[in-house]
């Protein structure tokens, strides 16, 4: 009984890493540009397809990921300069429609270029499990957690200790003051989007590393979970995003496992209910700030 519980928690943590990574990406661009990126999942999907292309051409999975991260960074920066800067941050109808339009385009792009057939990517981590008592911990889960920890630490250092990070934080907080201080605001915003796209690439490859097939629709459920994570954690809190992502991963695993009438088919009920509850009870989430969310 207890073993099953721990098992489910472990599985949930694995998924939670994916949600955390994608939620981080969402929070990054939200903080800097005020945009909720509904197309984040599709961007990640395309990045993962890029990884597949490279792997298919003979590259090792980690090398392919590294390359995809760099290309995604560039793509994210170009997207910000080319499209996002045209979106007014205070008119959310325009923002939502534009991002939904982008979602539709990228979704179609994936289908056009790669077709609907599922493909398999080699995992980032070696297969196999470690067993502790009755609990099987896949190396993949451990790997995902370690990778998430490394990324989180890296971002923490970037934001807290580097000049670039300071610039990103300043721009995220107050664009006008940043301009007045002489910061290259456009470049910094583009950088923020680049980072976010890079994170999305990692999230996508984590999805395939944890067992799912690569296909055009693979990121939509992940996006819903990631949105719920960002909502739960607080849309302007990177720490919140990571914590909430892990929490939701575990919650999802536990609920689909234990609650019969939900089961794996209704897995998406978990993030939706969480969002509902958060919005009723504490709209700013666990670590977010009230002014961002309150009407």
């Amino acid at each position, binding site marked *: 009984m207890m073993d099953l519980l721990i098992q489910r928690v472990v599985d949930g943590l694995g998924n939670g890493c994916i949600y955390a990574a994608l939620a981080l990406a969402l929070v990054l661009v939200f903080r800097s540009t005020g945009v*909720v990126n*509904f197309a984040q999942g599709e961007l990640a999907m395309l990045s993962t397809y890029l990884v597949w292309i490279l792997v298919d051409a003979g590259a090792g999975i980690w090398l392919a990921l590294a390359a995809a991260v760099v290309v995604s960074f560039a793509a994210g920066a170009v997207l910000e300069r080319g*499209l996002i800067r*045209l*979106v*007014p*941050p*205070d*008119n*959310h*109808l*325009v*923002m*939502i*429609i*534009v991002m*939904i*339009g*982008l*979602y*539709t*385009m*990228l*979704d*179609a*792009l994936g*289908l*056009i270029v790669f077709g609907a057939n599922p493909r398999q990517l080699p995992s980032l981590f070696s297969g196999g499990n470690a067993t502790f008592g009755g609990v099987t911990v896949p190396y993949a889960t451990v790997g995902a957690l370690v990778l998430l920890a490394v990324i989180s630490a890296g971002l923490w250092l970037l934001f807290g200790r580097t000049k670039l990070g300071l610039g990103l934080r300043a721009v995220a907080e107050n664009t006008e003051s940043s301009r007045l201080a002489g910061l290259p605001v456009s470049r910094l915003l583009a950088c923020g989007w680049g980072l976010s796209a890079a994170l999305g690439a990692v999230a996508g490859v984590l999805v395939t590393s944890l067992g799912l097939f690569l296909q055009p629709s693979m990121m*939509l*459920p992940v996006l*819903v979970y990631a*949105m*719920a994570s960002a*909502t739960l954690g607080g*849309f302007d809190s990177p720490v919140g995003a990571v914590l909430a992502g892990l929490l939701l991963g575990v919650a999802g695993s536990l609920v689909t496992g234990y609650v019969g009438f939900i*089961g794996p*088919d*209704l*897995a*998406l*009920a978990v*993030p*939706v209910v969480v*969002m*509902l509850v958060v*919005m*009723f009870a504490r*709209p700013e989430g666990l670590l977010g700030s009230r002014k961002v*969310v*309150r*009407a």
Partner: protein
Amino acid sequence: MSGPLTTGRLLAPRSLFFGLCAVALVYAVAVPFVNQPYIVQDYTLILLVALTATGLSLLTGFGGVTSIGHSAIFGLGAYATAILCADHNWQWWAALPVSVLLALAAGALIGIPALRIKGLYLAILTMGIAVLFPSLILKYGGLTGGDLGLPLPTMEPPAWTGLATDQFGYLVCLVALVLGMVLARNVARGRTGLALIAMRDNETAAIAMGVSIRRAKITVFALSACFAGVAGSLFAATQGIVSSSNSYVTLTGSIEFLAAMVIGGSTTVLGPVIGAAIAERVPVMLSSSNAQLAPFIYGAILIIVMLVMRDGIAGAVARLVQHRLAKHGPGGPGAGGQPAPRQKHGQRQRPTAANTAQLTVTR
């Protein structure tokens, strides 16, 4: 933000407006009598999408929320009617009110958190609901027919009308759409609508005037859902089948409703109809060349329209007409009022003489 009928002012002189509506109505009524049934069916879908989009535009303009989840409410209405008609032998016109009630309840429910949080966050929730809904249908496949679908009897034309099935269905939907448009217009100009404009333009003044924002907002949410519920119910009754793989009950459907609202424009009454026509037909037309290219172009159209013509095609045309009339209309150049200040990035709708005059009328 400028929104559906929110400015409370006419975008074109009354005569022109009514003339246009009359022409459109004549065309619309003629459709089922001059076309093949399968084409009439296509037009019926356009009517239903337009009806949902009209409700959406109320929500966006007055409720300040962009909903990406109306496919779920549409689906709720559709399945309620389908289940009642297929499994319990109800008539479509008896099932319709049930669908409406369910939709109203759903809308009001979403309206409650909307009072406390910004519209953007609610939009995220609605997206989750839209993605969840098909899973719900699949899960309870026994009741709903899952992705194979639940067939139900289509609405039968009463004998005295002498109409064919497809014609009757179309005309019922047309009546629903016209009623919906009239209702939307009245809400926009009535107490509720003006209350919400007042709140948007000057919150303290609105509260001071004793306007019940809470009630107004929930009303708008419930109403907007009601439109989608009616559309869903009529969809089931005219199509004869609903299934979870039907795009209208998935996220794709929500996007199409939004697209119809946005492309046509939410500031005019005819906007959602034009938008629905475009949203329905353009992908089909594009599909003939390459089925997969259609959504790609569709998405691009959405982005371009939103960035270039924020009030959609109808809105842009209406502004153009008003501009011309202001220059050359009765009273000479310059008279006849200024065209509305174009919404710049970040500028809120300024209370112009026209819309503040409407505000004093409510007192």
